[in-house]
């Protein structure tokens, strides 16, 4: 059977965009490099059926909160003046690589810090870009029909931390606040870091009624690099009128990170009351 260009174009255009699975598995999701070894590794795995081109670069950024308590990270090419950035002296090997289908690849990160680097922690972000083989765009270039499609690329950004010397961390808490928001209790937890290293921890919040019964719980991993004032939403069922207490516990317990990655610090606890009318 011979298909005309127009029929072929129509047929291709009606075909759904194919499943691409265009990207790679990245592990771990935070890299820690110490001054003794000066190297780290990221493992990649391509679960797809097509090769994936991977690029590795560096940037600078850490979590901050906006006025609404939303945590966000803005990644810049380099660290602003006064910030302990490491992006200028980290290198990735290889920086570009094609990971074959269902293949693994290790990316080595080597640090060459400047001589006389003071003790402390130095922050950055690894940007892992992945793009797959191009999917044919429906249509024929010289056809009179117009076909349109956009291909997708992905970038995964994870933290890379360089540590030298004796490091300490901790947080101090400003007064908590809490209020009922529809089906959740919104708790603001304003934290200021102490010491010379980022505070990587977990905030746990629970809502307790006047009889001491826990009516809602939530937890959130946090990284306090300077200050952070996140809004933690604690889901609750409908709360009868009354006075409730929110108890907040902040610790350096981080099960998502490699062992000993979070620098230990004493837990911090506080509570606040709010009223439902």
């Amino acid at each position, binding site marked *: 059977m011979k298909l005309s260009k127009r029929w072929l174009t129509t047929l291709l255009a009606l075909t759904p965009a194919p499943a*691409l699975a265009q990207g790679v*598995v*990245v592990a771990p*999701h935070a890299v820690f490099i110490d001054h003794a070894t000066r190297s780290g590794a990221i493992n990649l795995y391509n679960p797809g059926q097509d090769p994936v081109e991977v690029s590795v670069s560096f940037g600078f*950024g850490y979590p901050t909160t906006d006025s609404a308590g939303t945590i966000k990270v803005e990644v810049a090419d380099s660290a602003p003046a006064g910030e302990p950035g490491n992006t200028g002296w980290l290198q990735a090997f290889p920086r570009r690589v094609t990971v074959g289908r269902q293949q693994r690849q290790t990316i080595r990160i080597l640090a060459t810090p400047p001589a006389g680097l003071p003790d402390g922690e130095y922050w950055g972000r690894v940007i892992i870009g992945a793009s797959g083989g191009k999917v044919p*765009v429906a249509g024929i270039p010289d056809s009179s029909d*117009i076909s349109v499609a*956009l291909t997708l690329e992905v970038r995964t950004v994870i933290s890379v931390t360089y540590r030298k010397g004796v490091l300490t961390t901790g947080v101090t808490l400003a007064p908590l606040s809490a209020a009922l928001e529809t089906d959740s209790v919104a708790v603001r937890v304003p934290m200021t870091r102490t010491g010379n290293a980022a505070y990587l921890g977990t905030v746990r919040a629970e809502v307790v009624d006047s009889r001491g019964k826990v009516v809602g719980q939530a937890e959130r991993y946090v990284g306090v690099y300077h200050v952070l004032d996140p809004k933690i939403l604690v889901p609750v069922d409908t709360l009868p009128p009354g006075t409730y207490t929110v108890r907040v516990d902040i610790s350096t317990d*981080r099960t998502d990170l490699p062992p000993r990655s979070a620098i230990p610090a004493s837990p911090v606890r506080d509570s606040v009351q709010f009223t439902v009318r």
Partner: protein
Amino acid sequence: MHRARLTLLVGLGVALAATPGAARAQTVVGVQNLAFGTVIPGVPVTIAPTDAVRAGQYRITGLFLATVTVTFTLPTAMNRVGGGASIPLTFLNTSGQWDPAVGATTTFNPNSPYTAFVWLGTTLVSLGGRASPAPSQLGGSYTSNIIMTVIIN
């Protein structure tokens, strides 16, 4: 929150918490291109992020109790393969959709960073948009590239 959801969360959370941190991995993949298909000169085409067949789709997996910020590098036009023409492309305030395994599906503006909390499981991020071919648009295939950046806070 609703007891069944809480029970599910606790169960999955316990399983994930038992996984050593060093073994955690996350995946961000593009699973479906944003495809406008064949368009008619002079007739704009808008694809909603809810369009399961034509919307672009990304999948984020492997995160647990994490806050992520998603940004898009969006083209303003698609270029003709072989050159000679382009089609303007716009992304609307509701062209992005965040569909987590746990929690409500929300729409967002992909022209600005979007930050969300991921309890666990797979999150599907969908992207629509609008192509506006001119009445005298030259025939052919037009394409461009969209980059989604996922920053794990």
